[in-house]
């Protein structure tokens, strides 16, 4: 069985909203709800460790209650950084395998979690091909410093799954090295542990701006009418 660590503690400063982005609504529904409902339909996940922004515990508890989430939920305060949030959540994880997800990705459904869990390796991330050209640059001098082969690059997505022991080792490694990472697949790989990827969908957007909300609503509604 798996525990889900559901990251829900970001400040949402890019959204420019008066409250954390997890409480903003996509199609009239708090964005957090999409992940909770999707995971609730995944039988292999029997624990949700859900973090919350400082001062918003009661709001998170009300959402979990109102939507009658059946999977047991453990709440934990968010850390100062994403990395710290994951480390704190790991302390409450009851299973040997962990799925990581973030509430800001509302378009992930039960089938996506099932596909991730079905992958034969234990450390696996959804990653999407990059359909455009990226370049390494020196922002100080405003110069392009070389070339990157996009076939060898991927857009890192969530959800991801890890052996809990590997994720703990990787976080200990980062702490020892004094380094910070913005997500865990590259953190675990940097710690010398193997991480695999499976192809993700470009519809699995991270909602971080008001424009993203419009895009997410459009994607939720599916294709327009017409033959």
């Amino acid at each position, binding site marked *: 069985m798996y525990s889900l660590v559901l990251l829900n503690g970001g400040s949402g400063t890019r959204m420019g909203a008066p409250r954390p982005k997890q409480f903003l609504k996509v199609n*009239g*529904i708090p964005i957090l709800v999409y992940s909770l409902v999707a995971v609730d339909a995944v039988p292999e996940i029997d624990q949700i460790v859900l973090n919350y922004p400082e001062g918003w515990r009661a709001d998170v508890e009300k959402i979990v209650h109102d939507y009658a989430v059946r999977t047991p939920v453990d709440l934990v305060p968010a850390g100062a950084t994403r990395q710290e949030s994951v480390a704190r959540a790991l302390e409450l994880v009851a299973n040997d395998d962990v799925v990581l997800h973030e509430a800001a990705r509302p378009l992930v459904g039960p089938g996506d979690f099932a596909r991730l869990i079905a992958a034969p390796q234990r450390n696996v991330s959804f990653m999407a091909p990059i359909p455009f050209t990226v370049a390494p640059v020196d922002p100080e001098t405003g110069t392009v410093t070389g070339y990157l082969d996009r076939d060898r690059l991927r857009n890192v997505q969530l959800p991801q799954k890890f052996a809990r022991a590997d994720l703990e080792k990787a976080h200990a490694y980062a702490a020892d090295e004094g380094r910070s990472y913005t997500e865990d697949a590259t953190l675990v790989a940097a710690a010398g542990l193997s991480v695999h990827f499976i192809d993700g969908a470009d519809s699995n957007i991270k909602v971080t701006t008001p424009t993203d909300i419009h895009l997410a609503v459009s994607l939720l509604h599916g294709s327009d009418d017409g033959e």
Partner: protein
Amino acid sequence: MSEQRSVMVTGASKGIGLATAERFARRDDVGQVVVVARDSPAFDQAVARLEAVASPSVKVWPHRVDLADRAATLALVDDVYAMHGNVDVLVNNAGYTRPEPIHQIDFAEFERTMAVNLYAPFTVVQGLLHAGNRFEVVVNVASTAGMNGRSGWLTYSASKAAVINMSEVMREELAIYGTRVACVSPGRCATDLRRALAPDEDPATIMQPGDVAAAIEMLASDVGRFVDSANLVVRQ
């Protein structure tokens, strides 16, 4: 969801509700039919009829409740989920009307109309969701009177307009569970409620409850997903 579906029909003592309950009770892929109506001899007869025609796989469970009573409706929801488990198909059919012109509307009657026609279906849906129910299909029975206001029918028309709109919201919000929400708006149909609205009409000349029940059964079937994206008008 279980292989044999659980169906709940409100307003099942007569008319469209009874005809709908009977259609589901006859099906082999249904395990239980929960029927709700006010306590009355008509409901007793309806339950006896349903038990007589039910498929061997179907158990009929009557619940005697006045859906104008919100506390009783909330208790009903708790009882239904505790006693019968998940409701897969919910048909919110119960309706009430006492048509009067604006100048003669008794506000208590307006409140009762809204309580039965609008607040009760909302309360049943919300209560079951809070209990952890995952619907496959919700069918809300509105009316063509909710699409166009009719002189003398203010309370009924307004309540059914709200049901049509509420159904649109439910359709969007419950999509996160994969739940389909359909809304059906019958036109003139030979029911007691129609008799209250149009007492001089010959019921033999208009659409029968069984016709609407057939449309509701279709909406709850696999093919229903192709016609449930908008209010479905059923009229002669």
